[in-house]
């Protein structure tokens, strides 16, 4: 599996796409910081930047299909999966490696964004009384919990990507599944299931006290497992060419 991941990272780092995506994320981070810098008190403080980052925890999900696309779906689109499978590569290993690679790329992108965001916040914005280690600890605790949601979303994206060969369709379904599942459940009078949706877990991670992050993490882990297994089973039976 390490060889598969290594090869995927080699491919990703040999094209501009990932760097451009990372630059966009960097740029957005800096735009936010400079926006705060140019606003009036108390918004131009470093603690406001951290609070804003907490509120923005849901937005990285918008970028996750991009990672799945460059790691996994592109191989379906360019008819390349056959090259790997015909060499005898185990399908489950290949699928797992693809999901893991997209997680690694997400971690890299997040790390870069965080370094730039937090670093520039610390350098450019005013340090107020609320800018304490406790604030950082809480933020990173929420972010760590959100990471489980992100990985579950990547598993969901991998599942849809394997299910549908059409690029626009699987990405559309991913966004519908994440952002509109609550509306669909209400429509079908299944409101009891809303509390288990990933979108709700993200909301809870942002809003609930840090001591109550265990439940969203557990629900996200279950969702991750369900979509990962479903995707792996689907890939195992997929007719490849």
């Amino acid at each position, binding site marked *: 599996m390490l*060889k*598969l991941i*290594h*090869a995927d990272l*080699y*491919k990703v780092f*040999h*094209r501009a796409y990932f760097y451009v995506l990372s630059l966009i994320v960097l740029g957005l981070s800096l735009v936010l910081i400079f926006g705060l810098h140019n606003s009036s008190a108390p918004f131009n403080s470093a603690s406001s930047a951290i609070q804003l980052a907490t509120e923005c925890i849901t937005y990285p999900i918008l970028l996750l299909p991009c990672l799945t696309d460059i790691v996994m779906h*592109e191989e379906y689109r*360019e*008819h*390349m999966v*056959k*090259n*790997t*499978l*015909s*060499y*005898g*590569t*185990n399908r489950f290993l290949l699928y797992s490696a693809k999901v893991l690679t997209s997680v690694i790329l997400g971690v890299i992108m997040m790390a870069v964004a965080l370094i730039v965001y937090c670093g520039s916040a610390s350098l450019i914005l005013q340090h107020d009384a609320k800018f304490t280690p406790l604030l950082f600890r809480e933020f990173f605790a929420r972010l760590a919990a959100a990471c489980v949601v992100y990985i579950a979303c990547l598993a969901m994206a991998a599942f849809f990507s394997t299910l549908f060969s059409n690029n626009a369709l699987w990405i559309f379904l991913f966004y519908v599944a994440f952002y509109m599942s609550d509306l669909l459940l209400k429509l079908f009078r299944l409101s009891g299931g809303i509390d288990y949706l990933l979108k709700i877990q993200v909301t809870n991670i942002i809003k609930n006290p840090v001591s109550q992050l265990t439940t969203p993490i557990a629900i996200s882990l279950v969702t991750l497992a369900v979509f990962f297994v479903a995707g792996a089973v689907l890939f195992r*039976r997929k*007719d*490849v*060419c």
Partner: protein
Amino acid sequence: MGEAVIQTMNLTKVYKKFTAVSDLSISVNQGDIYALVGQNGAGKTTLLKMICGLTPTTSGKLMLFGNASASELNQARTHMGTMIETPGFYPYLSAKDNLEYYRIQRGGKDQKAVDHALEFVGLADTGNKKFRSFSLGMKQRLGLALAVMDHPDILILDEPINGLDPMGIKEFREIILRLNQENQTTILISSHILGELSQIATTYGFISKGKLVEHISAEDLKEKCRNFLEIDTDDAQKAAQVLKEQFSISNLEVVDRYTLHVGEQMDESGQFVKALVENGILVSQVYRSGINLEEYFVSLMGGKENA
């Protein structure tokens, strides 16, 4: 003749209500160049995909190097190089980067394997040119480079010369022959360009509507496709006797009461006619005949379908 490296036993593939491959059993021996011949939609690609593990089988058994379990088949496939349908590569990477990706993925330790493979297929000078800018011939060559990069014992090629110009076809043929003769690589190749196959194949498998219609060696096929003189007479049996006695012909076949096929001394047709007439046998016509590979294929497929 070496031992069997690829064996299928009653292999079947059914897609919902459509049977693509039905009870197909073939055996490819080590060192063979096995040509899989059939019309479009006959099941050639489906069979190759099953052998390569790209599509699950519905029933039947597949053995590679005598191994049949799923894990053993996967291990055996590491000794296979394949090119199934159109080669697929990353459009934004160069030839070298594309092959390097697979070298890393496969755990290849030889850093020069990529350069050697590109040199072997004549793509060493492509530099940073991206795959998306390659011509069809170059794409086919890169597909072949990937297939041979790890020095496979078996090469599986699905319609590798489609879209190539005559020069490209010639070069492709020379590469295949070199691999087979120098490295004893077993080659399973599917195509419907029969003229090309006839120049390289040692064994043929004719497939129609998912079934194996005929399995035949190149020598036997050559024998079946030989040229002959067809002599139409009023008494073929008597004519055969005369020709045997006077010309010592052994390669002779009485087709029916009036028709005779002579497979040797065909330049002596004038002498044959003279001898037959002198013996009171009426000769209505004499002409050269025979079937080529294409005609043989069409006759096997049962009509004037496209090859």
